[in-house]
């Protein structure tokens, strides 16, 4: 049973990453199962973003293997992993300022769009139909995250919480099989964070791999069913929120600050 679930998900095994003499990740393994919200936490500098970038293909670990639904990912760059159905969000909001929110989400559908170069310059009936279909899907994604009402606004006119949701809408729009979110709650206020969590719970599907990287312990504990804890480039614990809360290493290195107070 466990085996079958594993081969469906996003698996990283024994990932090691070093920049020169600096070992950022040391023999890190994690399994992201479909249908489960997985969390990755760790203090600043623990290597969360490095591991995230290894999963998305921005970095390539010196050692280790990764695979998605049984397909090896080693050597594939971000664009190729996107073609495998893996999408991500960015910690610093990655919106194009010249495009409306809807158009920003439309770009997320690029890999799914089939109109050729000719119809990019000359409107054809087929291109119009394709454009309408893409806009409908982008609108549906914005709707799913509850921000369809500002679809035609420019990013510069919108608060960061809305833009964060739009980034997730962009990731969702192309119906990916895995969504990796890099600190989705960074820079959000309490209300926006609650909206975000509600939205994330709503978009969970049985066949979707969802990873949330955060340093906000409360958010991770509330949202995730499976949690990995990273410290100094090593995976020190993994398990359910209850297991993590009780884990002595986690209490020492992560929650220790509060215990000392």
């Amino acid at each position, binding site marked *: 049973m466990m085996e079958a679930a594993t081969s469906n998900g996003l698996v990283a095994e024994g990932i090691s990453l070093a920049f020169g003499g600096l070992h950022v990740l040391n023999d890190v393994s994690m399994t992201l199962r479909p249908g489960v919200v997985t969390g990755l936490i760790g203090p600043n500098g623990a290597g969360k973003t490095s591991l995230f970038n290894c999963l*998305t293909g*921005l970095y390539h670990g010196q050692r280790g293997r990764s695979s998605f639904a049984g397909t090896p990912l080693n050597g594939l*760059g*971000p*664009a190729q992993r*996107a*073609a495998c159905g893996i*999408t*991500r969000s*960015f910690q610093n909001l*990655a*919106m*194009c*300022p*010249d*495009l409306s929110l809807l*158009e*920003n989400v*439309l*770009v*997320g*559908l*690029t*890999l799914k*769009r089939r*109109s050729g*170069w000719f*119809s*990019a*310059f*000359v*409107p054809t009936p087929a*291109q119009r139909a394709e*454009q309408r279909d*893409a806009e409908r899907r982008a609108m549906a994604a914005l709707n799913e995250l509850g921000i369809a009402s500002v679809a*035609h606004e420019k990013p510069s006119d919108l608060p960061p919480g809305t833009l964060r949701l739009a980034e997730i809408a*962009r990731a969702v729009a*192309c119906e990916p099989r895995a969504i990796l979110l890099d600190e989705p709650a960074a820079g959000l206020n309490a209300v926006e964070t609650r909206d975000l969590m509600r939205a994330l719970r709503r978009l969970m599907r049985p066949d979707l791999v969802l990873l949330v990287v955060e340093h906000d312990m409360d958010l991770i504990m509330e949202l995730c069913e499976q949690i990995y804890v990273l410290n100094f480039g090593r995976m020190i614990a993994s398990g359910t929120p209850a297991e993590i809360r009780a884990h002595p290493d986690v209490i020492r290195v992560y929650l220790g600050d509060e215990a000392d107070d």
Partner: protein
Amino acid sequence: MAVSDLAQTSKAGVSARSGHFDVAGLSMLAVVAVLLLAPLLAGGFLLYSLSLCFANALAVLSVSMLVRFGGEVSIGHSFFVALGAYAVAIVEHRLGLSIVVSLPLATLLGAGAGFVFAFPSRRLSGIYLAVATMALALALPEILIGFEKFTGGFEGLYIAQDLIPGIPKALQHYYVALAVLVLVCLALAHFRKSAQGLALLMAQAQPRAAEAMGITRSWARVSIFTLSAALAALAGALTGFASSTVSPNSFTFFSGVFLLVGSVVGLNRLSLPAALVGGAFITLVPTYLAQAGDWVPILYGVALVVVTLVANGGDLRRFLPRRVGR
């Protein structure tokens, strides 16, 4: 729809997305109407100058397109313009065919040449790409003179074939150039909303995010350069057609720099008015200031600096000394 497309290219066309006729769209129609009727009032040299303005406006658009969708600057686009112009001349001299054949052919040749240049330089950007394009502009006069057998050397070639026999040449030149310019502006407005156009804008603004959506940087760079070179060659083909002649004099190293000046004067916009302003600037200033001679490049330099400062700051006064106590 056509009107709203044109309107959207100008910044004012806020309501264009709804497809309604609006002020910007109507003013655009007015511009086109005036240009359509202009030959009734003007003739001779003015008509000839305006035809060249339209062709140069297209060349300016090719540079602006590279700036807008690629975030890159080329100072060697005169290479592709010359390629298009000579394609028309050579097709006429060797094959005896008119622009019905040579206009599309020149565009395809431009795309091919753009791709051949862009693919090896796909990892270059900013000043490095600009310098690489400079090599094209520098090599151009040598190539034109060196391949004398095809290009006619220093003397160049004449282009005499009509598109439609029986109609006065000046009118043909004028209306063909105008029609192509308007069609290209419409096509560019459509391109801005297309999947490829959006992907290019994203690749330029957020390269890493675009990569995560499957849009690679090298795809973006090669595509936009190829398209822009194709448009430059189309512009060149019309320059040749409208001026009835091609010669190395029209394609010096400075031609490429002037195109960039024209693009900046049009604020790198892809709208019809911006293209007309840029095209008119680089066509009419040298013509009407012919006596100024060596001063033209200096004037261009001043125009470049002023437009850049005004466009970026919006107010030249901030460069003046501040009053005490402020």
